């Protein structure tokens, strides 16, 4: 199989995963300017929920996914209410530090409960292996991942563009003060959006286990990628997150395949160059 297609396909799958992990953070950052570095802790939570349900309780893989979503969403609502809410108007630094603290605690907790090894995950038979189509090999799980991510993307776009809730979200991201003036309850809106975004991260984390593995360092490692996607894509932009995730996913896989010696250098370079060209992100507003 021509390597290019393999790289494209893998890059696409990886990009979709990054998108799921990042979109929630992008929207909440755009709406409330709250730098939530603990975003990937929710993703990690989703991953561990799936692993626990499957390995300890014998649940089927697909059934764990909604639970991962809900668990992450619920955890985020608790944290938002107890801690984060008071820091919406705080400085960047304070928000960073608060959420870094949460990350540290979450990593330590994960290591304590689960240890530092990679979590084993046995995918159901129908998601293992690969299909051959038109002479090309498609790994089943990656196909599944792409399909799920696409469905969610379509649902998100439909939700944002066509529902009243979506319109309110767009208004609040665009101009918070004006949105409040129009009678939109921005605080409740944000709490819901925050929960949804964290839930999506949890789902992403659950889906990530079979593709990139899971151990306590997940919360940090993927935080960096997510931050790159969000800052390059533009705060508050779903399209931006999507585009940036694709660019990042493809360049990372391509870089590692074609020029393994330089490894991750490529994505950092790409990020730096893109941020310098468009500091507010590709789709960010001026």
């Amino acid at each position, binding site marked *: 199989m021509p390597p290019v297609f393999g790289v494209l396909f893998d890059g696409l799958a990886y990009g979709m995963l990054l998108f799921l992990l990042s979109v929630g953070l992008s929207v909440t950052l755009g709406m409330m300017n709250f730098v939530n570095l603990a975003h990937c802790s929710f993703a990690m939570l989703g991953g561990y929920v799936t692993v626990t349900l499957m390995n300890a309780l014998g649940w089927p893989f697909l059934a764990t996914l909604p639970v991962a979503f809900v668990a992450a969403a619920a955890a985020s609502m608790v944290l938002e209410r107890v801690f984060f809410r008071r820091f919406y108007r705080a400085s960047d630094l304070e928000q960073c530090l*608060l959420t870094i*603290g949460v990350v540290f605690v979450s*990593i330590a907790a994960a290591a304590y409960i689960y240890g530092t090894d990679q979590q084993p995950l046995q995918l159901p038979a129908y998601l293992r292996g690969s299909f051959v189509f038109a002479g090309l090999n498609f790994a089943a799980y990656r196909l599944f991942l792409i399909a799920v991510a696409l469905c969610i993307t379509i649902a998100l776009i439909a939700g944002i563009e066509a529902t009243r809730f979506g319109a309110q979200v767009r208004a609040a991201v665009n101009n918070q003060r004006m949105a409040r003036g129009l009678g939109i309850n921005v605080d409740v809106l944000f709490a819901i959006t925050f929960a949804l975004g964290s839930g999506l991260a949890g789902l992403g984390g659950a889906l990530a286990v079979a593709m990139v593995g899971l151990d306590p360092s997940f919360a940090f490692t993927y935080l960096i990628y997510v*931050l790159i996607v969000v*800052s390059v894509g533009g705060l508050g932009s779903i399209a931006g997150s999507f585009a940036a995730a694709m660019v990042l996913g493809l360049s990372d896989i391509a870089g590692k395949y074609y020029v393994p010696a330089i*490894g*991750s250098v490529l994505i950092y370079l790409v*990020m730096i160059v893109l941020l310098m060209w468009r500091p507010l992100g590709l789709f960010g507003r001026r």
Partner: protein
Amino acid sequence: MIPKSGIRFSEEIMRQQSPMTDQALAAPRDYLQAQIRWQWGEIVFWLATLLPFVLTPSYLVLASQIAITALFALSLDLILGFCGIVSLGHAAYFGVGAYTAGLLSKWGFGEPLSGLVLAALAAGIFGYLSSFIIARFRHLALIMLTLGLALLLQEIANSASWLTGGSDGLQGIHTWPIFGRFRFDLYGYTAYTYSLALLFVVFLVARRLIHSPFGLALRGIRENTTRMPAIGAAIRGHIRTIYTIAAAIAGIAGALLAQTTETVSLEVLGFQRSADVLVMLILGGTGRLYGGLIGAAVYMIARDQFSGLNPQFWYFWIGLILIAVVMLLPGGILGGLSRLASRAKDKP
């Protein structure tokens, strides 16, 4: 009476003011001078740094490491506490300094003081170059750029293993005796004297810088970035200057580490190091010069005491402390102390 300054208020309004005597004019200058004077707390602090020689001579190696980390934290305070630049990648300059000194020694020239100078130069150059990028951005873009630059540097260092030794680190570092006479002994006497002396000297430089007009401009940038151009300040130039200086100081700290421990590995450039120094600075309190020093001391002594513990537990408690400091003790230890002091002063 026409005032010396010649500001352009009309004659009318100047006539209405009472004439300025030299006595009255002397007051504002003296007040500012009084603020800059050495306070007794500072003198006590520096005397206390001599205690390890007498009280805990078995901990001199740890003490030297604390001094080095304190210097690193001081350099971060200059950009973060005094200028408001949030950097998640300050270890980049620490690492450049460490590798420069390490490589110099490995290639046969282990003279420590020249190693320091070259390390400061190399780190300063890196800092100067990156400052052109850093100075143009704020908020998330700035944070990401600082992070990205450090990660990039670490990746490059990893790939360039022919130079850096990759994940094995630099081998063959041997630091010559200082001034040809003072060898680095196993007990750490030389190491601590060396690190402490450098910390003090650089501290004096930083202190003078903070109390200069430039230092005032930095605080202005921190306090209100919008107002600065409106009073004619070239913000970017100021930021570039302080960033370069802070990078050079971080480089000195890195070089000290390389010289006193005779090892350099990739983690000197890593995110962990950048995050740790940030935590120490916040713990101690930003914008007060001593915050980084105290935070470093507290953090590293605590870590040494709890080193038997699982590293997991350490980060659990650090995370909680970080959350607690942000929520309950903004301004860190020094901030809390100064609030206590002002409350004590107010009580009759």
